[in-house]
């Protein structure tokens, strides 16, 4: 599997080659060459680029999710996602409540959670924080196990795509408390006044 029919390489082929880097490294090492060959064959036989990419997009989406979900390194990411679920359900219910009641302010669910200190801390801070720490610990342990001291290596990135995604998502959730009022305030102020009063704007929004 070393030779690939690569006469004139199209931009589609180049893009597909890049996208293959999103798969776990072991999968690409085993099947990458064949997948590229199959892509060339598909490209040659496809009636149009649209039909080619319609098939490839669906294939990439489903197989990427599957390949990453079945990796051992994804267990912590899935565990974290379960811990994020109460927060996500609360946000979804709040949005739904606001949409149904046309209430532009805080929804009933969010109001209820916000007034129950224990619930609020658990849903919005403790559970997501445990999730973030679990993913982080798992990645650090993998780094130590693989003796790969550089987490920015392409292979580590590829094999921990789901964990990295979940880590970033968890951090965003944790930033929600301090920033959920400050960010809209800042964006609104920037749109209204531009850069002219950025100092006072930051001060004002910090206390929003």
């Amino acid at each position, binding site marked *: 599997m070393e030779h690939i029919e690569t006469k004139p390489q199209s931009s589609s082929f180049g893009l597909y080659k890049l996208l293959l880097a999103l798969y776990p490294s072991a999968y690409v090492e085993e099947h990458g060459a*064949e997948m590229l*060959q199959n892509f060339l064959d598909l490209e040659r036989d496809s009636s149009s680029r649209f039909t080619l990419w319609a098939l490839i997009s669906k294939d*990439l989406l489903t197989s990427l999710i599957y390949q990453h979900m079945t990796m051992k390194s994804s267990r912590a990411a899935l565990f974290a996602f379960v811990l994020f679920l109460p927060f996500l359900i609360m946000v979804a219910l709040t949005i739904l409540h606001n949409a149904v009641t046309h209430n532009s302010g805080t929804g009933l669910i969010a109001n209820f959670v916000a007034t129950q200190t224990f619930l609020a801390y658990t849903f919005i801070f403790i559970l997501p924080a445990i999730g973030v720490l679990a993913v982080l610990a798992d990645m650090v342990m993998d780094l130590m196990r693989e003796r790969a001291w550089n987490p920015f290596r392409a292979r580590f990135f590829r094999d921990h795509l789901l964990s990295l995604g979940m880590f970033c998502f968890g951090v965003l959730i944790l930033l929600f408390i301090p920033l959920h009022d400050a960010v809209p305030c800042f964006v609104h102020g920037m749109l209204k006044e531009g850069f002219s009063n950025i100092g006072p704007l930051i001060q004002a929004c910090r206390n929003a």
Partner: protein
Amino acid sequence: MTKSPLTPAVFHILLALYGQERHGYDIMRQVEDDSQGSVKVGPGTLYGSIDRMIKAGLVVASNTQDPRRIYYKLTAQGKTVFKAETERISQASAIAKRQLKAA
């Protein structure tokens, strides 16, 4: 994989490999032809399914005739599972036809 009904992709890969070893792209084309276009597998899905089928003992990589490609073929267990699944589908189809006629 062998106890429960097979997924359409796995069933059609077994069908494509029944009696003939094929390489990846050949399997993709054959699956599309056999299913009259209703099942289309891309490269990512194909090799994911083949990996699972190899683990389940249904398929093996064959000796390569072509240096650019890997050929796959059914094992004896793969043939047995394919026949059993075909039988199961035939029986279910017969029952469904009877029910449709009775209704």
